[in-house]
Structures are given as structure tokens and as C-alpha cells.
């Protein structure tokens, strides 16, 4: 996979197929990006599992925190990692010990570790880096258009009026994959510098 620019179909396929998502580094603090994403994905019907050893015994929006991925005790479809790039590798190594393996490892906006990604891909796990699943879901459904964001999708179809807790269709026509050409280039330059 070219991690500088994902085709929309790749992201769409992931968001359409996964049901359970373990979020590593989920925060109960309601201004943290992980909280935003956790809440949004739960509202859109995903089975969310918060993973954070610092909060075991508490819950996040009604879902009990677990200390580690191996404590989940049931198969999961996707691991969403809310950690800095420098903390990605150990999490990916932990993911690779799970049985069965999840289908997807997703690294949050700002997080990227190409070596860790290659390890996961070598055993057939799909990897997304430096993206937010909330933003991608909002973009492909065009719900994010309320905020003036370029969803880079078009549709002449009448969508159902969105309500809380409803899954939205992500199957609009894509206007070029990944991010805009200019923002992709900027992200690539940044990751090459670091």
C-alpha cells in the first residue's frame, strides 16, 4: 500500500467491513481527539472497546476500559492506535500476538511508523496511517461537509436524513483518492524530514 495517498476505495472498504474497534490510548478527557473519535464511531454503530491501562475499572461512554489488547478476550476487527509515532511499534507487536489477528491496524492523525506497518502488512493486516477514522467516515459519507470540508465525493442521489446512531452510506463517487494532491505532498515532505 502506498501510505502517502490512500485510494478512497481502500478506506471505504475498511470502514464498511469492520464492526469491532479496539482503541489503544482512548482518553476519558472530553477534549482529546481520541474521545472525539471514540464517541463518534460508537454513535455510528461500531462496537468500540477502550484500551488504556491507566483507566481500568472505569468506563468510556458505557464501555469498560481494558488494560491491554490481550485482555479483550474476543476477536476484534480493527485496532485504532492513538499513540505518537514513537510508541507505535510495541503496540503493533502486541497486535501480532493476537489470535485471531485483526483485519486492520489504523494509526491516528499525526502517527506514522513505516517499519511497523510493513510488519503488519507482511501477515496480511491492512494498515492506515496518519488518518482519523472519524474524519474519513465523515468525509466519505459527506457528513463532514457541514463544516465546509472538501469531502472529495459527489452524489446525485437523495440520501436518507441522518439521525443519531445511524450508519451512513459511504458509497458516493470519489473525486480522486486520498487527500488533495497538495496536502498529500505536504504530508509526504513532512514525514521524509522527520
Amino acid at each position: 500500500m502506498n501510505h502517502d495517498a490512500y485510494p478512497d476505495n481502500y478506506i471505504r472498504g475498511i470502514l464498511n467491513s469492520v464492526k469491532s474497534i479496539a482503541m489503544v490510548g482512548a482518553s476519558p478527557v472530553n477534549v482529546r481527539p481520541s474521545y472525539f473519535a471514540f464517541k463518534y464511531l460508537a454513535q455510528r454503530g461500531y462496537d468500540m472497546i477502550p484500551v488504556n491501562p491507566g483507566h481500568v475499572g472505569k468506563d468510556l461512554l458505557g464501555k469498560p476500559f481494558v488494560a491491554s489488547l490481550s485482555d479483550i478476550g474476543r476477536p476484534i476487527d480493527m485496532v485504532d492506535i492513538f499513540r505518537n509515532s514513537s510508541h507505535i511499534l510495541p503496540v503493533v507487536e502486541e497486535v501480532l500476538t493476537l489470535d485471531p489477528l485483526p483485519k486492520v491496524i489504523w494509526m491516528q492523525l499525526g502517527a506514522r511508523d513505516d517499519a511497523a506497518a510493513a510488519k503488519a502488512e507482511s501477515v496480511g493486516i491492512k494498515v492506515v496511517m496518519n488518518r482519523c477514522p472519524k474524519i474519513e467516515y465523515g468525509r466519505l459519507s459527506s457528513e463532514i461537509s457541514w463544516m465546509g470540508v472538501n469531502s472529495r465525493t459527489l452524489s446525485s442521489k437523495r440520501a436518507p436524513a441522518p439521525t443519531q446512531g445511524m450508519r451512513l452510506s459511504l458509497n458516493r463517487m470519489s473525486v480522486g483518492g486520498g487527500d488533495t494532491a497538495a496536502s498529500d505532498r505536504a504530508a509526504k515532505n513532512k514525514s521524509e524530514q522527520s
Partner: protein
Amino acid sequence: MSDRLPGFSTLAVHAGAQPDPTTGARATPIYQTTSFVFNDADHAASLFGLQAFGNIYTRIGNPTNAVLEERVAALEGGTAALAVASGHAAQVVVLQQLLQPGDEFIAARKLYGGSINQFTHAFKSFGWNVVWADPDDIASFERAVTPRTKAIFIESIANPAGSITDIEAISTVARKAGVPLIVDNTLASPYLIRPIDHGADIVVHSLTKFLGGHGNSLGGIIVDAGTFDWSTGGKYPMLSEPRPEYHGIRLQETFGNFAFAIACRVLGLRDLGPALSPFNAFMILTGIETLPLRMQKHCDNAKAVAEFLAGHPAVASVNYAGLPSDKYHQLARKYAPKGAGAVFTFSLKGGYDAGVNLVSKLQLFSHLANVGDTRSLVIHPASTTHSQLDDAAKIKSGAGPDVVRLSVGIEDKEDLIADLEQALGA
């Protein structure tokens, strides 16, 4: 679902708009409402906390305006946009995110006169200090950079004389200085020039001109290219630092490559207040659907009119970058190959009196202070917008006593030429 890149005209008609989910209305409805009901207390809290996508109050966002925002972001190749009440409002909101009192920004000397006023006087009272540079001398931008520089501001095609700016060269200076390049793309529109493709980090427009295109609605817009890294060195605290207005959210961290557009909305528009009326957004959206057709006709007409004027005995000189003899012709071929725009100046051998005489005799060209209308427009700056200046100052600002500015419309070019011919003749 293939990832296929639709063309500019398809985006001009479709981007951001889909049939209304509740009624099936195909044209974008005018959501003429101040506010939007919440589903419940938690939904309200999620919206106010920026955790959910949705509408609260039209000063912060409105569904009609949102279609306009996504449309222009798509046409410019940006990640997101924010529509505001006017082009000038867009400029204030952009700089409010970038500058703290005592900071500086570098601006091209060749700008719309209103922007020169805004930067020199209004912004000075905010403690935002403009430093002028000459777009014909790229090194002058480099020399103007100081540790307090926070942005560089240029026009792609500069008002009034229609000169073309070397966006790439200036973007190199901006990158070296570690500051964003802001390009006012009003006179080009994204049909002629897409500044983001040439290194712009932020694009602003007066939608009042070619994008709306019909001289009926004021509006402005800010497009985020998604290219600038706001997190470095705490230089842009509105984006990189926890915001007390939002319980400590860091906008860059939360919104990634459209954080600047969000900052403009939730820290700029929300608090300064220059919201665009949804009715104006609707009018401008309707205009944008025909932007490619109109813009090409504007340019073709402007070239024909410029050629006519260049051959007329009463005319001393024509400044139109679409003419092969023009100083900016090479830049026009590089940046605006489809046409050099439709706003330009020319000077009359008969000086001030000839300018006044011409304007009074024209029958189709309207004498007014605007550009980018379907109708052809004319102004004699020395007797109007620049009449307060002395002759030396008039000449320096490109508005000498003999200078006339045209904004060529989309009428039949033969009629425009005939009108100029009768007015210049007798």
C-alpha cells in the same frame, strides 16, 4: 466506485451539493434560519464541543453556506473552506488566526486599493504591521522577512492593472521563512489560476466578483490548502496551543489538514461575526455553476477589447497580460494559459480630461466601483477612488490621471468595441 478525477466544470456544478435529504429538492435550498434544533442535551454538547458534525447557529455555519464552502474548496483543490460576509472579512479572519499584536506580515504593493487601506489603517490599529514588498522584485520579499513575520499576502492577478504575480517564486520565499503564503485569487478565479498548485497555503476570495459573477451579492471565502504545518515552534498559538475557548482543544492536533479552516470558523467567524447570509450563498452558488463558461467569455472579450484599444490612436498604452507585448505576458502564459483575466488598465493620450470624457460617453460600460460582473464596467480612478491623492501618488499607485480601468463583461465583444469606439472617437 472508482477514484476518478472529475473535471473543473463537473465540480463547478456538483461539488458540495446533493439532493436535499428531507424534500428531494435538487437545487440547493436556502436555509434561511438563524438556528437549528438539537436532538437532545448530549447532541447539543457534542456540537458545541466540536465533537459532532452538524449545525448550531448561522453565525458559525449554515447548510447553504456549507455547500458553497465545499464547492470552492473543491475548485481550488483545498481541504476545506469558510464562507464569510465579504472579501475583506475573509482577510481579517485569516490574519486574526496568524498574527498577535506586534507581529508583521509582508504584502505585495500591487493590491486592490481597499486591501491597501485595510492593511495600512485598520490592521495597524490591531497591532498587525504590514511590510510592503514589490511583486516585480522577488528579492524585496526576502529582504522584508524578520523574526516577527507571520505570513505573506499577494494577489494572483493584481487589481487594478491586471499584472500577474509569480506565485511559485514568492511561495519559495514563504517556505524558507516558515510562514504561510496567502493568495487573493479574486481576479483570476480557480478557473484561470489554482494558487494551491503553485505553493499557496491559504487562498482568499472576494466572492462578490467573478465567482458570484452577476454583481448581485457580496461574499468572501477562505480556502485551506492543508499544506502548512502549524505545530512548529508555537509560532501559531491559535492552531497549536490548547484553546481556552474550547476547554483546551488543540485545533491542529484534532483537525489535521483542515485545522486552519476550522480555526477561521470557530475562533474567527464565531467571535468576530462576519457571517454570510444564506441567501447570498445561494446566489453565489448559482453563479459558480457557470463560472467556466463565463470566465472564458470574460477573457476572450477582454483580449479582443485590449487588442482594439492597443490599435486606437487616442490610446497611449494598454496594460493587459494577454497581449504578447505586455510585460507580464510570459507569467500569464505560465500561470493563466486559458486567459489573463478581464480586469486591466489603459492610458489615454488626452490625460485626465480624456478619461473623464470617455467615462461619461460610454453607453454599455457602467461607471462604478466594482469588477467581475456579467456587465462591462469602467472606472477612472483619478477622478473617483484615487481622487484624494496628489498626482505623484496617483501615478505611483497605478492610477495616474490618464489611466482608465475596465472590467470586461460577457456581452458580445463587437458591441463593447463599438461602445468604446464611439466614446473615444468624438
